């Protein structure tokens, strides 16, 4: 087209040129030494703080906060509930525009990114918060510095149909890799299952099912310097995972949106690996009495024991907070074992503080206590800001491994290369 377009282009280009005079400052100063926040003042909290929390937690938190306000008459907590959908986008834009609340619940995998954005206040040393599950504690630590507390946790277990297992000749859950595969095969041959076990055939989030096996073999995802995917332990786990698909025990062409619950209830796929929310989900589909037809078990042991993935949410205080002391005191309150137990009653979110599991409600529930056991050895991925991007390439390669029978060693090599070129982002 004619001249006017050229004029517009020139305008844009010159604007870009004038801006381009600036360059990146050398270092951000954040890296290096582990930090702790300055001490929080003694005494009761006062002042008003704003807190963000997602979904159902955001809805129920005000009731818990009322208890905090009762204990600290001068303090007021305003909770804003935000939807899980796009919550991450809301946080990053708020960080950019400096319009953050005082404290917030955040997803465990966002910690590295937010700390890298210099938005989080390091945990003050004189705060009385401890006794968390080790893996959960790890989610709050970025480069040696702890930025907040694990608020509640979840982990992944093996779900299996007890009635069908019996039919297949098993009255106990498998504890070894071979045992798991044998049982899955027997489910197909003896108990009429279409597939022995439901495993995600690669794609988004499939690493959460593969890593429990790799961790059980003693795999480490980082050596402190960078990512380590191309290791014998990882290879062991990926080969094992692939064998389920190669031998037709798991479905390699399952739809993107799995039908886990109905398949479990019908017995078509009588085993799968998932988190605590699946208990109510399968019971809703299964109807009355279904809770006696299935059970949960720890992830079968590799040579280094049983491990799993630990998820959940952390609670942080932002650097920009004007009421920092009150915000941290609120966090301290949330980490109190009794408050954690109360919170379980209100929300059914599993406590991150180990001693909170001694209360009746949790200790008496057979299935829940297995989650408690698994949490002791469950692990979290490294909290590098680039983790989500790196793991996306692992998910993509896992899809090739499970669906097209690609070589696991090659796949891990590819992931390693991509991880190296992306870097840790710290």
């Amino acid at each position, binding site marked *: *087209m*004619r001249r*006017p*377009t050229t*004029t*517009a282009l020139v305008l844009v280009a010159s604007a870009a040129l004038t801006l381009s005079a600036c360059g990146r400052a050398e270092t951000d100063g954040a890296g290096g030494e582990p930090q702790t926040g300055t001490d929080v003042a003694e005494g009761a909290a006062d002042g008003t703080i704003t807190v963000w929390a*997602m*979904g*159902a937690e*955001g*809805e129920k938190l005000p009731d818990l906060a009322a208890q905090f306000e009762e204990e600290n008459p001068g303090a007021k907590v*305003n909770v*804003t*509930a*935000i*939807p*899980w*959908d*796009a919550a991450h*986008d*809301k946080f990053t*834009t*708020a960080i*950019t*525009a*400096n*319009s953050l*609340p005082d404290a917030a619940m955040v*997803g465990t995998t966002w910690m590295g990114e937010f700390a890298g954005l210099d938005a989080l206040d390091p945990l003050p040393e004189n705060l009385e918060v401890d006794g968390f599950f080790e893996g959960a504690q790890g989610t709050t630590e970025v480069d040696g510095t702890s930025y907040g507390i694990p608020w509640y946790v*979840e982990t992944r277990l093996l779900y299996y149909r007890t009635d069908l297992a019996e039919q297949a000749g098993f009255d106990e859950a498998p504890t070894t890799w071979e045992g798991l595969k044998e049982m899955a095969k027997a489910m197909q041959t003896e108990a009429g299952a279409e597939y022995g076990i439901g495993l995600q055939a690669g794609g988004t989030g499939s690493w959460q099912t593969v890593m429990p096996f790799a961790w059980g073999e003693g795999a480490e995802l980082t050596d402190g310097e960078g990512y380590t995917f191309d290791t014998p332990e990882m290879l062991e786990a990926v080969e094992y995972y692939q064998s389920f698909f190669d031998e037709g025990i798991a479905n390699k062409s399952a739809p993107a949106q799995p*039908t886990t*619950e*109905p*398949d479990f209830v*019908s017995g078509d796929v009588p085993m799968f690996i998932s*988190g605590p*929310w699946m208990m109510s*989900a399968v019971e*809703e*589909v299964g*109807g009355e009495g279904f809770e006696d037809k299935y059970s949960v078990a720890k992830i079968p042991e590799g040579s280094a024991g049983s491990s799993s993935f630990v*998820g959940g*949410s952390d609670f942080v205080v932002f650097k920009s907070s004007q009421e920092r002391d009150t915000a941290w005191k609120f966090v301290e309150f949330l980490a109190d074992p009794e408050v954690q137990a109360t919170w379980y009653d209100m929300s059914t979110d599993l406590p991150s503080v180990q001693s909170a599991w001694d209360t009746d409600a949790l200790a008496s529930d057979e299935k829940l206590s297995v989650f408690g056991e698994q949490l002791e050895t469950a692990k979290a991925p490294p909290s590098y800001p680039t983790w989500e991007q790196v793991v996306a390439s692992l998910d993509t390669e896992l899809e090739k491994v499970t669906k097209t029978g690609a070589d696991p060693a090659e796949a891990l090599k590819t992931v390693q290369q991509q991880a190296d070129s992306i870097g840790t982002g710290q």
Partner: protein
Amino acid sequence: MLGSRKQQYWLYGVLAVALVAVIAPFVWMVLGSFKTTGELRQSPPTWWPETATLDNYTQLFARLDFGGYFTNSIVVATAVTAGNLVFCSMLGYALAMLDFRGKRALFVVVMTTLMIPGVVTFVPLFVLVANAGLVDTLPGLFLPFLVSPFGVFLMRQFILGLPRDLVDAGRVDGAGELRIYWRIILPLCGPALATLGILTFLGSWNNFLWPLVVAQTEQSYTLPVALALYSTGQNSTQYGLLLAGATVVVLPVLVVFMIFQRRFIEGIATTGIK
């Protein structure tokens, strides 16, 4: 009318089959909002609710301050729609019927921005709105969307299709350009304004990400943001709540569509371009 009786029957038959195929998901959405979560997870899915329940709706309304969110949504969508109808038709008329310096450049720039994916300007736009102190205000929700390149393009294309004689006749009668726009052109734009109105209202009504980010307290949430609050969890989705919410969001849009649909037909009758 076109064609014979027989042709008409055929056409009705084809359209009826198409209609059933086309509205099925909508019907399923509405029916699904009366099902329990357990039933929604069943496979294969059911059509009729086995045990119809109002639980999803009672839960939704018990948990939400519905009136406030509804008002916010109405204010924002109405402002955005009004802005687009007025400002875009003004420029559309100028681009279609008038000669002025910079006309071509203006059109090219407008068309150019129409092609830039929205996600890329999201962050700079939010920083701008935040710096202007508009975060957590209703103007912050609607100001950035009062005009759209799409609206200009639509109005320009429609006005191009109107007889040019109308403008010339107006000039001969001594009417000014603004008067021609307001008195002669705009009344003829009924169908196009109805179309733009429907599309703009719908887009603004369903907008999720922008109000989520700009609204910092629940007082300025719009309906889609509020309805998303409890339906999606960290690891699971409550389909019943989700479908009930989607149904609630869609109802006002259906009403708007039906109103504008009538304007559509009036447009045919009043313009006289039969």
